[in-house]
């Protein structure tokens, strides 16, 4: 162990200083105008990033000012995080987000998550995406219900950059794609023409209706984005897994004029049971991917189109490292919200890392229900409260994320 506890504490206090002189001031300014240029008649875009595997919120947004931080985190305590707000830093790999944070467009909700106690990835993800902890009904997701959709909506009104349609969007009739160049039916021209004929006509058979919509979307995309041969392939490798490539795909689709109103992106490397790493290493690479993806979307959209982006994960991880230099499945984590009208800074209810405040004596507690965060994001995005069945049985608490 090269680093002593004292050195960690000193590193923490440096962060505090930075936080006071740096962007912290802008957070106290409160209300800010929406970061959207006037005269843009495009509807707002909502981007949901799901960090699958359970992202360590204490690594993303370390509570450096907490007296227990250095001792509890041990080798995982970050010696020199980026300044954020008093008492909290940002993981150095989040550097691409600094300009957004300085603008006051980055909100962090700490100790956020699902109140359900499960530590199973698939259960926790399903509950979050279904919008209802403990549910077993997985036929539609929270975002699908919030957006409405239906057969009349444009097939690209919502989409997922993923290999499979995530539960969040199930029920909208929307598509998942990892590469806009691969979206379609891989068959010869003759066969594709015959297929279109098979699904043409006024039949009300739900299979025909769905198939017609699918083939219509394929044709639509070709008309707007151009034929296969003209599209490059190299850039899309890794989309659906790497957020940066997925962000590029989303920008390509959006830029081609498809009327995307909501998009789900995801990445899957957050289950850091071993060798999590500190400011560099395994998790730092995933964090860098997240930050770069957010920064690219911001650069591609800001000033051109009103957008909001929310980052979520199924649960956090143990406060203390395990015996393998990693962390095990925990409870509370963080959520990030970026974009138009966001009140930057730290939100939520931070109760410290004292043993009495921890969930089951080991995890960050959930003090903000994830549904409250998403409800506010949806209200801002839709311009009205989301439908009551978006989060069945949940009464959202007001957080003041937008103003």
């Amino acid at each position, binding site marked *: 162990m090269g680093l002593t506890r004292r050195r960690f504490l000193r590193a923490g206090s440096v962060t505090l200083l930075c936080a006071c002189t740096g962007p912290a001031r802008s957070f106290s300014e409160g209300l800010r105008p929406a970061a959207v240029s006037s005269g843009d008649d495009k509807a707002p875009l909502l981007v949901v990033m799901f960090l699958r595997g359970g992202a360590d919120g204490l690594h993303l947004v370390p509570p450096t000012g907490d007296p227990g931080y250095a001792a509890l985190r041990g080798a995982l305590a970050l010696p020199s995080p980026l300044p954020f707000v008093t008492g909290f830093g940002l993981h150095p790999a989040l550097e691409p987000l600094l300009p957004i944070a300085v603008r006051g467009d980055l909100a962090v909700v700490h100790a956020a998550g699902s109140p359900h106690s499960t530590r199973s990835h698939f259960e926790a993800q399903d509950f979050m995406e279904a919008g209802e902890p403990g549910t077993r009904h997985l036929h539609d997701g929270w975002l699908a219900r919030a957006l409405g959709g239906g057969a009349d909506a444009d097939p690209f009104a919502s989409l997922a950059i993923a290999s499979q349609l995530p539960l969040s969007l199930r029920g909208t009739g*929307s598509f998942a794609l990892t590469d806009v160049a691969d979206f379609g*039916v891989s068959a*010869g021209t003759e066969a594709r023409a015959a297929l279109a004929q098979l699904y043409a006509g006024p039949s009300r058979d*739900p299979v*025909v209706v769905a198939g017609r919509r699918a083939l219509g979307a394929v044709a639509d995309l070709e008309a707007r984005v151009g034929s296969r041969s003209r599209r490059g392939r190299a850039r899309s490798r890794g989309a659906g897994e790497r957020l940066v490539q997925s962000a590029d795909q989303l920008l390509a689709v959006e830029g081609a004029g498809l009327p995307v109103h909501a998009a789900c992106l995801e990445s899957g490397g957050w289950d850091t*049971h071993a060798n999590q790493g500190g400011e560099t290493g395994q998790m730092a690479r995933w964090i860098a991917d997240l930050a770069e993806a957010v920064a690219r979307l911001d650069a591609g959209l800001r000033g051109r189109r009103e957008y909001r982006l929310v980052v979520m994960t199924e649960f956090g991880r143990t406060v203390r490292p395990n015996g393998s230099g990693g962390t095990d499945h925990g409870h509370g984590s963080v959520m990030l919200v970026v974009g138009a009208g966001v009140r930057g800074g730290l939100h939520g209810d931070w109760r410290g890392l004292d043993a009495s405040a921890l969930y089951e004596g080991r995890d960050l507690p959930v003090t903000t229900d994830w549904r409250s965060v998403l409800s506010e994001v949806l209200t801002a995005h839709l311009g009205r409260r989301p439908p009551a069945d978006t989060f069945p049985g949940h009464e959202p608490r007001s957080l003041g994320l937008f103003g």
Partner: protein
Amino acid sequence: MELRLRERRLLERATFGPRPGGLEALREAGAEAWVADQLRRTNPRDVALEERLTAFPALAPQPWERLVGVEMDSATMGGRPDREARKQLSRRAREISVEITGARLVRAVHGRFGMREVMLDFWSNHFSVFGRKNQVGALLPHYEREVLQPHVLGRFEDLLLAVARSPAMLVYLDNWTSTAPRLSRRVRRRAQVRGRGGINENYARELLELHTLGVDGGYTQDDVVAVARVFTGWTLESRNDPVFRFRAALHDPGEKRLWGRRVGGEGIEQGEAVLRALARHPATAHHISRKLAARFVADEPPPGLVRRVARRFLETEGDLGEVVAAVVLSPEFAAPQHRKLRTPVRLAAAALRATDGETDGSRRVVRALGRLGELPYASRTPAGFPEPSPYWVDPGALLERMNLAFALAGGRLRGTRLGPVFPAGVTALPETRARFSEVQALAIASPEFQWV
């Protein structure tokens, strides 16, 4: 006319689809004789299928250590095997899951006793376990071979008891960690119970809601807790030796009341008595009969049919062969107005069978089918995959179905390919100059072929 439809539907719904010549053979035998042959109680030999299944080493009976190829030091329930061993175990569990899934596809496509394969599919979905939870994947060969297969056409009670004792279900629904509350420190140490012990309601709830009575079967939260207490001590020998073991020391000996009545007996007998009572309960008969009618007749089955089948269930004390026969030989089964959608696995298997095709069940076809969202032991909820067609029909799913058809026809899934026959029964194809294999794909991707 009705007879013709019954014959076709027997192959389309009660097996994974007709093979060339199958319909003629069935007509020659007659529907009732064909059903009787399919439902033979003793496990019939299917030598050609057995030969194909030798390609899946995980299926063979073998000691646990050999199957998973990993030794773990901490032998008991609460002990944590070291991290490397756990990683290796979960990797093996995934591999074994893929094998089991592939083998099921081989069974569906090449099995001679199609009704038996369909019933295996039905019961593994009814008693659903998720192969990716903990080590469940590695427990699947045992679950299929020892728990489900011997009973798919046997008595419901035997099936229910076998599932309750199965390591796969004990782990999947956490019952193996369910103990009496307030165990003494000595007992906890000896049994290496993690934490302070206490009941886990997961299995008890699903036993009542999904496995037997049904959600409207008339039970309360108090009943769930009582059943959970009945099953305390139903656990495993150890992590290293995952076989059923009843541990009296972990069992809650206190009085339990179900539906207002005291549960008799003691120890393991209590659980067995509760399972027998549940298996004979009229609500269970109704719940199982409704699910079978929904599987074979219509997503919303006629109530009169469900009542008749439930009566048969009670009369025969849950003889599943008799119950299934009552469904597929009913007039409703052959009523033209009831359509059923082919789910993704049924679509793929039917396409391969209709063209006299082949599959080796290798990883590639498993992965391709996985994209369509239905594989054995891949349901993320204990309710299994839903049967009603709306769950399976949306534009994205249709695109996947079309691409699957062309991937099969184009030989893009090594080890799995369509045969030389054009699928019988597809009538509405447009004129096209596409190649023969592509016309086959068009038939499989056509709206007509999605329904049976």
